[in-house]
């Protein structure tokens, strides 16, 4: 996706758009993102008025239902120079779909385009925005990782190399390939509920590759894929889990920066 005139986020405070899935299902991912940003000396804010970006409805075709949420997002984040989100698919929603949603509403369209240029997916913000790949992290013991490329991040935002570069730079971390890493896990939001058998067929293939992978930990940039794949792994009784890249990286933070996880 082309983003003309992307202002550099260096030296700017960051507003975290945490996404509803992270907020309510996987808050530890949000905490990890905060800790990583703070580790780099970035000031993090959390606009408490934020809600869902509207993607679940939008992707189902319920654009009327998604629109008030998109408007709310624009209102909440309009004045903020840098927005960072730990999700490739929500970032895609904001960057690619908001301008389409408001194509016939010039004032909103202008806001949407301005916000699109200021919104970053977490790994993209770190590597392409701040220009750092070595976050100065160190794992207590050697660990091997592989990356599952979440579709939206990969094909709509051009992500993939960022997560691998960040992990590779962590002391004691090794990154190995995952077969068909760029194949969809079959989630697709509403798709997995509307056509669960088909979705499960794709999931089975993904799980097959994960089980055959030498890395015990698979990381990804979207908690939606993580939720889906882990749901399948748990049902199969497998011990492996997919983790969000932010959490995998945050394990390498100095002890004193890691505290304060939310209650489960």
């Amino acid at each position, binding site marked *: 996706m082309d983003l003309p005139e992307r202002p550099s986020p260096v030296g700017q405070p960051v507003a975290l758009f945490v996404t509803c899935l992270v907020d309510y299902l996987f*808050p530890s991912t949000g905490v990890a993102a905060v800790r990583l940003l703070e580790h780099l000396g970035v000031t993090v804010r959390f606009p408490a008025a934020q809600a869902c970006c509207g993607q679940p409805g939008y*992707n189902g*075709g319920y654009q009327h*239902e998604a629109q008030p949420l998109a408007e*709310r997002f624009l209102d909440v984040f309009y004045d903020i120079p840098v927005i960072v989100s730990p999700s490739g698919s929500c970032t895609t929603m904001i960057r690619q779909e908001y301008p389409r949603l408001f194509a016939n509403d010039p004032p909103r369209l202008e806001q949407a385009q301005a916000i699109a240029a200021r919104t970053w997916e977490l790994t993209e913000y770190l590597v392409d925005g701040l220009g750092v790949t070595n976050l100065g992290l160190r794992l207590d013991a050697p660990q091997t990782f592989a990356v599952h490329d979440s579709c939206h991040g990969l094909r709509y935002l051009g992500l993939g190399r960022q997560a691998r570069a960040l992990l590779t730079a962590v002391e004691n971390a090794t990154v190995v390939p995952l077969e068909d890493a760029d*194949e969809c896990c079959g989630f697709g939001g509403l*798709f997995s509920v509307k056509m669960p058998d088909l979705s499960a067929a794709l999931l089975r293939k993904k799980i097959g590759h994960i089980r055959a992978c030498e890395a015990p930990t698979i990381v990804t940039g979207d908690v939606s894929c993580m939720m889906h794949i*882990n749901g399948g792994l748990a049902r199969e009784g497998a011990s492996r889990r997919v983790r969000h890249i932010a959490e995998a990286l945050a394990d390498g933070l100095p002890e004193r920066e890691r505290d304060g996880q939310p209650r*489960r």
Partner: protein
Amino acid sequence: MDSHAAEFVVAARRALADTPLQAAVKRATDTAARKRDLAMFAAGRDYGEALRQQSAAARHRALSQLPDLLEQAEARLTANGATVLWAVDAAEVCQHVQTIAAQHGVRRVTKAKSMISEEVGLNDALIAAGIETLETDLGEFIIQLAGEAPSHIVTPVIHKSKEAIRDLLVERLDMPPTDDAGTMARFAREHLRAAFLSADMGISGGNFIIAETGTLCLVTNEGNGRMVTTLPPVHVALVGIEKVVATLEDYALLTQVLPRSATGQALAVYTHMINGPRRPDEIDGPEALYIILVDNGRSAIYGTDYAEVLGCIRCGACMNACPIYEATGGHAYGWVYPGPVGAVLTPLLTDLQEASPLPYASTLCGKCKEVCPVDIDLPRMLLDLRRDLVNAGHTPWLWAAGMRGWSLAARSPRLFDAAAHAARIGQRALPDGRKLPLGPLGGWTASRELPRIAAQPFRAWWAAQEKAQSHDDEP
């Protein structure tokens, strides 16, 4: 052809349980996708990407001036000695072909592969009119023998194993049993040879028409296309009105990406450029050439949000790349065009409501757009079709009600918080490790555990941190 797209979900489930089908489709699509990547990027990724973007531009160029180009094509084709006919719908296509057949006293027809002839149900119409009609593309020949429909637009018999094809040939044509694909192909060729020589009319499709020269272009791999278009005294080509390109130069571009994307070949084995019927000084070719320009719903797409799909050059790459197509094969899609492009075309060319499952048969993973040689944004159109379905009231009321509730709750962080809290308490009653008997999550929980709602959402954690911090800051 009648559409069965409404039964997609049931047909997909059947396909998932069909082990030989699964194996055949997976093998074929994996191979095709791999060969495509190799061929497209043989000269480097940048070169391949540039080729894609230039090809997309060529198709945009053509579509943006389609009415003019069609008129130009008609004039040039006519000047070259072809007869140009227009057909609004399927019935008119069949009518034209039957009239031509009657004029020339045609009793036997040989056909090269043409998806548009499937679309308009031409074979059935001709056979009903007492005209012997034989498919000569090897895949289509097998499909016709089996009384089935193609399941892929490039490799129509992709759903059948070699063994199934052998059994069919043995049973229907008394082929001596063999396991060698080459021997089977030779047997079919022998069988077809007589038909080529005795046909009164050949029918083909057309990959492109070059407007500036009045040239009909065909890309084939088996040589049957050349037999069909040159041996019988009459050649009829059915071509969709969207297949026009402006210039020879644009054609030169597209003829590079089409075989690369379709079969992983830099150049197809046969590239035909037909500039009219046989001229007095030529030794072969048909006496009469008819070009039927087929609308059949295309002009209604022109000028809408979906016009982009008219740029499709029918390479099949999106099918080979699609994980859903790999899981279902082509027949589940219920009409002529399967896979991602079919999920867009079928609702547009048949009936939106009837085809309502198809736009939802996608995870929106974006692979189809990534491999499309003319960069058609299929995921975008699937999203727009979903919007149209919702706006027309063609989705279940329970979904609509649920989405309205979600939208209202999600708009208010306080309400959403309360709803999540209530759901968390409700969730305690749900057991892990088995399928929920009822409700929209029944299917999900058949093979996945549900995630658990957190006791402390991120926003509550943040608020607690801030509070603690402001305490720390107090003097």
